[in-house]
């Protein structure tokens, strides 16, 4: 079964090449089919994984595949999955599938567009399934520059400046990451293997140096305050699929790295630095939510709210209890799906109304009921309504954070919880302005209804969000053992 992961990475890569070689119309079909295959594959992977676990397989990572890459450097292409990465793969494939469908109407060099999109998803799959720090870094970087082209060519507004800012900031993060990786590498006597690094704990001094580099490096990707400023511009300038990918997947790459590399491998430092992590993420949560209140552009609104929501992920990681880590993994998945849906809905609405300014819209529920409903669902998920995924993940983070009984952690938790009130305010204001109310422009009275492809693309995500919101135990069963292993690193620390 070890061929499954390489296959999953290869499918989008082949599709990327194929997309570029055919004409535009075939390209979108290829992209959609490849998206579907990816979805099926990732679900198959989950099935196989679950079967292994059910059969009592206890190894931390399953479905492993090992290829020697640079023996001189002791670099290997190690692939393998635990529950956390399985969920990430499924999330990624869902978003990619939906993004390919929602880009059905891309004009202007559609083949390059879909090619880049598939390229990005290959990077994401590779990142989530790598067990070697170099391979992780490779796949992470792989997903940086195509974004520049995606935003710069098919974006809107100040697209080139935004694309530049995004790529440069992410690259800055990568620079820190690169350094941090080498600190780890040499600290461990020349080893990039995740599993080996986890079992042979690095010295405390080395950890203290490496942690800030790695955490900030990955943190830039996931909008760690104050390195978040690429988020609003980048997301809002990107084309629909670009925003979906950026907010849905790309930000999770960073979060996953913060968890899997920075926290898991460097537990001593993670404990030592956890107050800073908590402070920064609390700031991101509250400040992001407050800044969102002042936005008038829908995409900016969702972008700022992503800063706030991703703050939850980092908060959960910083809190370092089993429940909080569980919660932050769930939040990664939940936010990935939810924000992709939101951006998808916004993009489809923008396609029809030709404006993203909230005050220029109104009463869309009358003219495009389906898309409005999707918008409302995404909004309600974003504000943490029970029944949707956002609720379970945020609550798990809160409960996990609450296990610390000191004032500092409590205040941080309460601040984070308070932000969900602010979230409710801006989401409802947006819904009130855009979906409800009287129709403000004559041209908005009759708009083109959602096509079947668009309904399918958004529907997939809605179902996924509902599934996660209604059946969260499916998730916790899948990942709680892995969260426990991560926590083990901390307990070892407390009882040396």
């Amino acid at each position: 079964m070890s061929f499954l992961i390489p296959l999953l990475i290869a499918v989008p890569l082949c599709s990327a090449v194929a997309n570029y070689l055919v004409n535009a119309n075939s390209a979108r079909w290829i992209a959609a089919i490849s998206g579907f295959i990816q979805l099926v594959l990732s679900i198959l992977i989950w099935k196989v994984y679950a079967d292994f676990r059910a059969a009592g397989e206890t190894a931390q990572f399953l479905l492993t595949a090992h290829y020697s890459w640079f023996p001189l450097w002791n670099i290997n292409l190690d692939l393998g999955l635990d529950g956390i990465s399985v969920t990430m793969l499924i999330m990624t494939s869902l978003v990619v599938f939906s993004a390919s469908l929602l880009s059905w109407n891309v004009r202007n060099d559609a083949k390059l567009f879909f090619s880049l999109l598939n390229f990005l998803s290959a990077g994401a799959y590779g990142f989530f399934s790598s067990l070697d720090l170099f391979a992780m870094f490779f796949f992470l970087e792989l997903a940086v520059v195509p974004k520049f082209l995606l935003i710069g060519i098919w974006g809107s507004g100040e697209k080139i400046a935004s694309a530049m800012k995004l790529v440069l900031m992410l690259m800055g993060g990568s620079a820190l990451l690169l350094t941090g990786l080498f600190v780890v590498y040499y600290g461990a006597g020349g080893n990039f293997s995740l599993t080996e690094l986890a079992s042979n704990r690095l010295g405390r001094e080395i950890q203290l140096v490496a942690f800030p580099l790695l955490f900030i490096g990955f943190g830039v990707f996931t909008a760690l305050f104050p390195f978040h400023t690429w988020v609003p511009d980048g997301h809002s300038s990107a084309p629909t699929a670009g925003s979906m990918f950026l907010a849905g997947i790309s930000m999770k790459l960073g979060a996953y790295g913060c968890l899997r590399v920075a926290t898991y491998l460097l537990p001593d430092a993670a404990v030592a630095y956890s107050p800073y992590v908590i402070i920064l993420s609390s700031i991101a949560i509250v400040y992001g939510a407050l800044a969102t209140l002042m936005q008038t552009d829908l995409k900016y609104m969702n972008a700022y709210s992503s800063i706030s929501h991703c703050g939850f992920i980092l908060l959960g990681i910083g809190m370092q209890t089993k429940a909080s880590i569980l919660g932050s993994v769930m939040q990664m998945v939940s936010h990935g799906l939810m924000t992709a849906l939101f951006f998808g809905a916004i993009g489809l609405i923008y396609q029809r109304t030709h404006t993203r300014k909230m005050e220029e819209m109104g009463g869309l529920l009358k003219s495009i009921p389906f898309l409005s409903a999707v918008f409302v669902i995404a909004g309600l998920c974003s504000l943490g309504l029970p029944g949707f995924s956002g609720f379970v993940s945020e609550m798990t983070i809160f409960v996990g954070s609450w296990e610390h009984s000191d004032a500092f952690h409590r205040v941080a938790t309460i601040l984070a919880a308070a932000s969900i009130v602010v979230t409710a305010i801006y989401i409802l204001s947006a819904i009130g302005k855009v979906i409800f109310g009287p129709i403000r422009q004559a041209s908005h009275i009759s708009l083109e209804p959602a096509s079947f492809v668009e309904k399918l693309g958004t529907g997939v995500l809605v179902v996924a969000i509902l599934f996660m919101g209604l059946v969260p135990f499916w998730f916790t069963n899948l990942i709680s053992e892995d969260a426990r292993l991560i926590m083990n690193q901390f307990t070892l620390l407390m009882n040396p």
Partner: protein
Amino acid sequence: MNTILGLIPVEAFLFCWILLILGLKISGKNSGGLYVNLLLLGVLVAIGLVAFPAPNAQFGDLIHVNALNRFIRGLLYLGTFFIVIQSSSWLKKHDHAAEFSILLLVVLSGLGLMVSTGNLLIFYLGLEMASIPLAAMASFNLTSKMSGESGLKLILSSAFSSGFLLFGISLIFGLTGTISIAEIPVNLANSTLALIAMVMIFSGFAFKLSAVPFHFWTADVYQGAPMGITAFLAIVSKSSIAFVFLTVLFPILSAIQQVWPTVLIALILLTIFTGNIFALRQSSLKRFLAFSSIAQVGFILMGMLVPSEKAAVSVLYFLVVYMFSSICIFGVAQWLEEQTGKDSLSNFKGLYKENPFAAWSVALGLFSLAGIPPTAGFFGKFFLIGSGFQGVSVWYVVLVGLNMVISLYYYLKIVKYMFMNEVIEELEKPQMALPLKISLGIGMLAICFLGLSNWIVNHLSNLF
């Protein structure tokens, strides 16, 4: 056949070839195409001779022939081959194609000597054999003022730097009584004089390598010289010096090893930063490439911080990558310059719409130089930074990394020009000649697969 001629069959062949071309020229043949083809054939044979497996051998301590320097020679010749293909349309029209061919072959044999040296004398000989004809070639656009000035600046400043280099070597000789590279470190005692001598030698190298602050000639010479020569200077000449730096200077410098990394990292940061900052706002294409290549030199020097097998492999690997990346860019740049007659970055505007192949070639080359996966440049930079990592403090490396951000800015600016800007003036012939296309295609394939597949790195690590 332990004679010097047996050791250097390439040089012998090149010498014969020079005579052949000279003879033809004297006999009054004046067709540019003939000489270009002869030149290409000559370089190709040279590559074949280098690639032909041969045992390691050496001639006293003067010349070593081993797998390693055969590899670098092959690389240099290959680069030359591509460059000649790419500038063949320029060269065919030139009245003095024969002279150009002769000069180039002389340079190649000089470089070949230089990289296989075991002795400072041969090193110096090869160096000058390579750089003096280059000055002549730099001023080969006989009608252009700039070209003349470029040659002038190259020859004068290189004479000046040779003065320092030689003075340094002479001091070393005085201190140790030997000019054999293997023996110098053994005999060299630590003294102020030795230190000054080494700095002098180093400055000579740094000049050729265009490390800051010895780099000032680079931009001017690059800008004035014909594009093919610029490419040659940037790719072949620089690679050979970097290689010699690794094999010649490194052992000598071992005397001051304890302070060396710190001094060098300061120089590296200065080099990368200067290269990047100057490249930010250039409008001339060649000047831009000059400064970006200066920044690349900084990265190459990262591999010189700590002597190790990894470092050496990293440097060599990067040279390979750097060659292919540059070829992808220079080829298109030259093609554009010939059509527009301008040496301007705005040549690239809207290129993707006119010729996607050319645009992808440049884009991949730029990504590779910027160190973006999956291009080979990513691996190259990763290894270089990694191999230099142990010698210095973490924060220097962070600074180096952050400089990659600045460089990415200007590389992406060109990508933006190509993919997102509208065409300014349409090209007369948007199609490329087949040889050029093939050379770019090979470059692109190499960029894409040299990192993903590991054979070249493995091959290199077997050379040591």
